[in-house]
C-alpha cells in the first residue's frame, strides 16, 4: 500500500487546519453558506436531508486493517454505529455534527486518510478495479497510476472550480470491474507490442439524467504522458464546459455537443502544448518507485488445490455456494480474492456496523495480509486469501453476519441512500432494495436465476447507477406519488450499455412484483442456465418482458 511521507503528512495536516479555519469563519457568519459550500464539499462535507454527512475518501478502494479500525472508531464515536460504503469506493457517515468534523479529519489523518475531493466540482477521489494487484486476468496493477493521479489532482489550483464534478476510474484488465466507460475519464492499462505500459483513454461517460457511454480518444497513451494528457483533457473541459446549466455541465455534454472527433482534436492539440513544457512527464524511475508501494505481498506458498477447502465444500452447502459466488481466482496459485457481501437479505446495501468493520479488519489481518478493498458494487473484498484458510475465514464472516454468498446475484443490489437520507431524492430506494432482496432471498432461487445486477436510484441523478443495471429501477415523483420506472439491458462492464425504459412505472407496492415478473419471464425464455439475464435481454429484446408486464399490445 502507499505510505505517506513527511510531505503527505504535512499536506493533509495543513489542509485540515485550513478547513478548521473555514468552519470557524462559517460559524461566525463571515462566510456565507454559498461561499462555504464549495469549501466544505471539497473536504467531503455534505448537507443532507436531516444532518451533515461526511464522505471519506478511500482512494482506489484500498484500505489497511488499521484504517478500517479507524472507520469503525469514527462510526462508534461520532456517528450512530455504522457507515455506508458507496459506489465510488468511499464511505459515508450520515450523522456527524459539523463541530466534530475537524476532529474526525484529525483521526483520519492519523491513519493516512482524508475526506478530500470526495465532493465538489473538482477531480473526485480516483477509483480503480477492486481486484487490482491480485486478479489473475490483470496486465498490471493500475493503482500506482491512480495514486499518482490522486496526488496530482489534490487541491489542484487550476482544476478546483470546474464546471461540474469530475470522476476518473482505472482498470488493468480486459474485464472492466470499475465501469470506466461511465466515467468522465476512463483509463485501461495495457501493454503495447513492445511490452511498454500505457493507457487506452475514454472520455465523456456518465450517468445522471443524461446517461452516456464514454468515447475512446486514445488507443495507447504511453504511461509517462499520463499527467500531461489528463491535464490537457481537464483544461479543454475547464475552459469550454458549460456553466450556464448544472445539468449540462459534465464533460459528457461537452463531448456530445462538440462531437467526439472535434473534442479529440482539441485534446490532442492541447496535449502537444502541454508536452512542450515537459514538467508533467513522469520519469520512469518515479513510476517504478510509486509502483513499489503496491508490490504484491510475499505470499507463502500454498497448495493450488486445497484439501481443507474441498473437505469443507463437501461438508456445507452454504460454504460451497459462498466459494462459488464470492471467491475469484488470484494471480498466485493457492490463493483467492474473497468478496464480502454487504447485501444481507433484507439489509441496507453497503451498510456496515462498527463491529462488522472491526471484524473485517481482524479477518484481513489474519487471512489477507491486512488488506481490504471497497468495491464500486458496495461490497468489501479481501484480496489475498489462501484457499486453505477459506473455511476459517468463512466461519469468522458468519460470526459477523457477513457470510452471504450472493456476489453478483440478484440480491447483490446497488442502491442509493434515497429519500431516507438524501435531499435530492424523489423516492425511497432502500425499502425497495430490501423488498426485492427478501423476494429473491431464497438461496436456491438466487442460484437458479444466476448473474443479475439490479441497481436502484431514488432520483434522476442516478447515484444508484440504474442506467448500468441489468435491471434498473428509477424512483420518480408523479404528482406526489413515488413511482418506479424499470429499465432493462444496462451494463457497466467492458460491453457498457445504457438500459432502456420498458414502459410506464410502478407504485412502490407493485414494483417488487413487476421485477419478479421480469425475472420469471427471463427464466422461461432463456436458452439454458448458461444464458445470463443480460445475454437473454440482448438476444430477445424488450418485447417479451413488455408483454409480461403490460399485456400483449
Amino acid at each position: 500500500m502507499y505510505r505517506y511521507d513527511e510531505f503527505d503528512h504535512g499536506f493533509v495536516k495543513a489542509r485540515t487546519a485550513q478547513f478548521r479555519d473555514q468552519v470557524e469563519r462559517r460559524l461566525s457568519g463571515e462566510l456565507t453558506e454559498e461561499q462555504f459550500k464549495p469549501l466544505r464539499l471539497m473536504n467531503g462535507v455534505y448537507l443532507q436531508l436531516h444532518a451533515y454527512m461526511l464522505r471519506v475518501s478511500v482512494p482506489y478502494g484500498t484500505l489497511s486493517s488499521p484504517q478500517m479500525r479507524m472507520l469503525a472508531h469514527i462510526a462508534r464515536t461520532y456517528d450512530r454505529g455504522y457507515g455506508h460504503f458507496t459506489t465510488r469506493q468511499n464511505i459515508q457517515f450520515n450523522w456527524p455534527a459539523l463541530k466534530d468534523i475537524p476532529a474526525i479529519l484529525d483521526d483520519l489523518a492519523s491513519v493516512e486518510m482524508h475526506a478530500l475531493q470526495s465532493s465538489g466540482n473538482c477531480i473526485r477521489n480516483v477509483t480503480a478495479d477492486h481486484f487490482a494487484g491480485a486478479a489473475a486476468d490483470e496486465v498490471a496493477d493500475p493503482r500506482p497510476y491512480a495514486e499518482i493521479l490522486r496526488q496530482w489532482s489534490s487541491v489542484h489550483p487550476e482544476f478546483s472550480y470546474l464546471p461540474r464534478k469530475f470522476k476518473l476510474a482505472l482498470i488493468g484488465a480486459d474485464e472492466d470491474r470499475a465501469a470506466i466507460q461511465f466515467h468522465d475519464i476512463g483509463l485501461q492499462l495495457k501493454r503495447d507490442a513492445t511490452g511498454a505500459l500505457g493507457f487506452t483513454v475514454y472520455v465523456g461517460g456518465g450517468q445522471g439524467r443524461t446517461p452516456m457511454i464514454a468515447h475512446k480518444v486514445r488507443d495507447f497513451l504511453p504511461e509517462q504522458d499520463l499527467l500531461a494528457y489528463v491535464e490537457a483533457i481537464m483544461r479543454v473541459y475547464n475552459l469550454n464546459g458549460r456553466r450556464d446549466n448544472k445539468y449540462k455541465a459534465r464533460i459528457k455534454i461537452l463531448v456530445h455537443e462538440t462531437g467526439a472527433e472535434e473534442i479529440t482534436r482539441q485534446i490532442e492539440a492541447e496535449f502537444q502544448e502541454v508536452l512542450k513544457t515537459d514538467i508533467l512527464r513522469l520519469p520512469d524511475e518515479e513510476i517504478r518507485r510509486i509502483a513499489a508501494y503496491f508490490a504484491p505481498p510475499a505470499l507463502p506458498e500454498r497448495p493450488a488445490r486445497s484439501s481443507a477447502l474441498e473437505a469443507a465444500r463437501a461438508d456445507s452447502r452454504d460454504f460451497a455456494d459462498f466459494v462459488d459466488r464470492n471467491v475469484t481466482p488470484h494471480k498466485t496459485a493457492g490463493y483467492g480474492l474473497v468478496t464480502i457481501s454487504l447485501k444481507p437479505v433484507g439489509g441496507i446495501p453497503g451498510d456496515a456496523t462498527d463491529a462488522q468493520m472491526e471484524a473485517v479488519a481482524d479477518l484481513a489481518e489474519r487471512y489477507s495480509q491486512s488488506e481490504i478493498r471497497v468495491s464500486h458494487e458496495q461490497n468489501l473484498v479481501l484480496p489475498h486469501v489462501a484457499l486453505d484458510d477459506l473455511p476459517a475465514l468463512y466461519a469468522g464472516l458468519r460470526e459477523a453476519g457477513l457470510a452471504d454468498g450472493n456476489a453478483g446475484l440478484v440480491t447483490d443490489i446497488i442502491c442509493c441512500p434515497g429519500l431516507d437520507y438524501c435531499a435530492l431524492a424523489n423516492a425511497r430506494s432502500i425499502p425497495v432494495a430490501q423488498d426485492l432482496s427478501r423476494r429473491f432471498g431464497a438461496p436456491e432461487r438466487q442460484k437458479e436465476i444466476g448473474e443479475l445486477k439490479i441497481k436502484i436510484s431514488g432520483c434522476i441523478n442516478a447515484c444508484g447507477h440504474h442506467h448500468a443495471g441489468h435491471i434498473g429501477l428509477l424512483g420518480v415523483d408523479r404528482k406526489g406519488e413515488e413511482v418506479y420506472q424499470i429499465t432493462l439491458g444496462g451494463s457497466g462492464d467492458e460491453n457498457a450499455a445504457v438500459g432502456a425504459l420498458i414502459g410506464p412505472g410502478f407504485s412502490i407496492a407493485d414494483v417488487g412484483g413487476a421485477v419478479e415478473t421480469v425475472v420469471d419471464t427471463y427464466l422461461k425464455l432463456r436458452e439454458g442456465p448458461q444464458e445470463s439475464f443480460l445475454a437473454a435481454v440482448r438476444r430477445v429484446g424488450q418485447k417479451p418482458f413488455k408483454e409480461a408486464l403490460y399485456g400483449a399490445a
Partner: protein
Amino acid sequence: MNALARVPVEPAATSVAAPAASAPAEPALWRNGRFEADEWERVAPDAAVPEGPALLPLTRFLAERQALAARNAPLGVVVQPDEALEELAPYLDRVSLVALVFPKFADGRASSMARVLRERYGFAGELRATGDVLIDQMPLMRRCGFDAFEVVNEPTRRQLAAGKWPDVPYYLQPTGAPAQLEVPAGTRPWTRRPG
C-alpha cells in the same frame, strides 16, 4: 519560465491601507503583499483613451490596436472568460497588464487562462484577477500566475489586511511557476513548496 518577472504576493507584515469598513464601491488592489493605489484607468467602451495607463476590453484593444500603438503610456487588456485568449497572444509584447475575470468565485475558467498566458505565451506583465475574488481562492489563483487582485469582498479585505493567506503550502502539482514562488520539494517530481 525563469524569464517571468512575477512578484511574490506574500502578505507583508507591513500591510497598510486597510479599506474603509463601509460597503466599498471601488475594488481595492492587493499587490506586492499589500493594498496599493491602482495606477490603471479602466476605459469605458466609448470613452476616450486617457493619457496614463489604460485598461481596455479585448474587443476594443483588437479593433484599435494600430492607433493604440502610437501611445507612449502602458496598455492593459481585460479578457472575459468566454473570449479567445489566442486572439491577444500575438500582441502581448505591447501589453503590460492582463486582467482576467471571475464572474463568480466558483467559475474557474480564468485559472486556466492565467496558466496559458504565463506558461504558454510567456506573459511577464501584471496578471490581475478581477470579479468575485475571495480569500479562499486567492492562493490557488496565485499558483496559476495571478500577481494582482482586485478585491471587493469586505471580509476578504479584512483577512488580507490582517496578514491572512490561507494557503496549503504543500503543492502536489507543478504549474510552471518561477523559482522565487515555488521550488521542488520532497522526492517526487511533481511536489513543490513555496519558494
